[in-house]
């Protein structure tokens, strides 16, 4: 065990566990499944706890998010039967769990359908685009931190974001055409 002092435990909670929402959100978008996300984040917490004394970088959040990402991708690899890796099934992922996300109480029907539509569009993106969109738009992280989490150069973050947004915009245009015709 690399933890040297009991105070490290408090430090671990204060610097790592505080990012549990961000961790779960990333895992949830990567695995596209509630149960898998929870398992992956638990695994990530264990991994992070073991490595906390020795391996964490200067930016604890980015380091922890990288651990979460790896745990999520490992989970997908090991549980292909459960995690929907290729085809994303909209029917399977009904609106039910959307209502459990932190939608505002006053969210009206329009916003609700907008959320559902967006969620399906983002979920359908290949994971390398999905993860940079989630980290940039939902976590508001700078390219440098995304590059550390995803473990690719900053230039690649930039081109993946551009491509990911292109793909989303295509879906947006198609759905607008569909609804107007």
């Amino acid at each position, binding site marked *: *065990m690399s*933890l040297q002092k*009991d*105070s490290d*435990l*408090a430090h*671990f*909670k204060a610097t790592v*566990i505080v990012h*549990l*929402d961000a*961790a*779960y*959100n990333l895992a*949830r*978008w990567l695995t596209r499944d*509630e149960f898998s*996300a*929870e398992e992956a*984040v*638990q695994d990530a*917490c*264990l991994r992070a*706890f073991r490595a906390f004394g020795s391996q964490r970088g200067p930016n604890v959040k980015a380091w922890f998010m990288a651990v979460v990402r790896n745990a999520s991708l490992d989970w997908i690899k090991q549980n292909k039967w459960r995690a929907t890796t290729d085809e994303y099934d909209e029917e399977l992922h009904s609106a039910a769990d*959307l209502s459990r*996300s*932190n*939608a*505002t*109480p*006053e969210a009206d029907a329009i*916003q609700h359908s*907008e*959320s559902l539509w*967006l*969620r399906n569009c*983002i979920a359908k993106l290949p994971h390398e685009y999905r993860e940079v*969109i989630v980290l*940039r*738009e*939902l*976590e*508001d992280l*700078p*390219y440098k931190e995304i590059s550390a989490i995803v473990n690719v150069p900053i230039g690649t973050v*930039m081109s993946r*974001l*551009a491509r990911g*947004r292109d793909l*989303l*915009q295509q879906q*947006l245009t198609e759905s607008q055409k569909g609804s107007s015709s």
Partner: protein
Amino acid sequence: MNCTHAHQILDAWIDNELDGATSTQIALHLKECSACLALKTGRDQLRLKVRAHAPYFNAPTSLRHSAESFTGKAGSTRSNKSNKKPSWRMTGALISITACMGVLAGYLIGAPAENSMREQVVGSHVASLSDTQQLVAVASEDRHIIKPWFQGKIDFAPAVKELSKEGFMLQGARLDHVGERPAAALVYRIRNHTINVFVWRAGDERSAAPVTTVVRGFSVTSWTNGGLRYSAISDVNRPDLERLAQLLNSES
């Protein structure tokens, strides 16, 4: 700059990741090229949609419990091994636990109201940027026009400052609301980012220094001064928003 190059760096520009010189070049190109401008407008709309409407999945309570408890278990195994350690460590632990509980209690009591306030600020910000709503009811860079404009419309006088030297261009103002409360909305712009500053009556809240949180991808910096509550919100990077908050909150 040609269109191919502009396309390549457009996203990095929107994300505030370019240096000043390149930002100026692409801004100039967009003034001349309507095709690239259209692309940029599309991107702005998409980002707004994603940030406002894409679901954010918070950690479920069950996960929070298990994350807390496994670290608790790991900690207790350790302390069993070190039974002989002096009791001041235990005292220290108790003090820190008590402190944590105090902070947690404060958080739990204060959090819901603050959170819903921030959600309402996000809601009003997003609505103000939609195509159907006017961003400003009075367009002016002059605080001597904006400040009197509020007279007779709201029963308080928000601080209005011209901050163009600092890079924040005053665009104008409008009446808005945060949740149910009527609010003054001041609009600033920095580079290509719109910042809304909502101001409403603070009730009996004491003055408080600016605090920033991130809600659905937007930075929200809030403070209280002179019986008024201020909330600045934008997709601009956090240091810029905090700088604006400091400037608006300062006496001069």
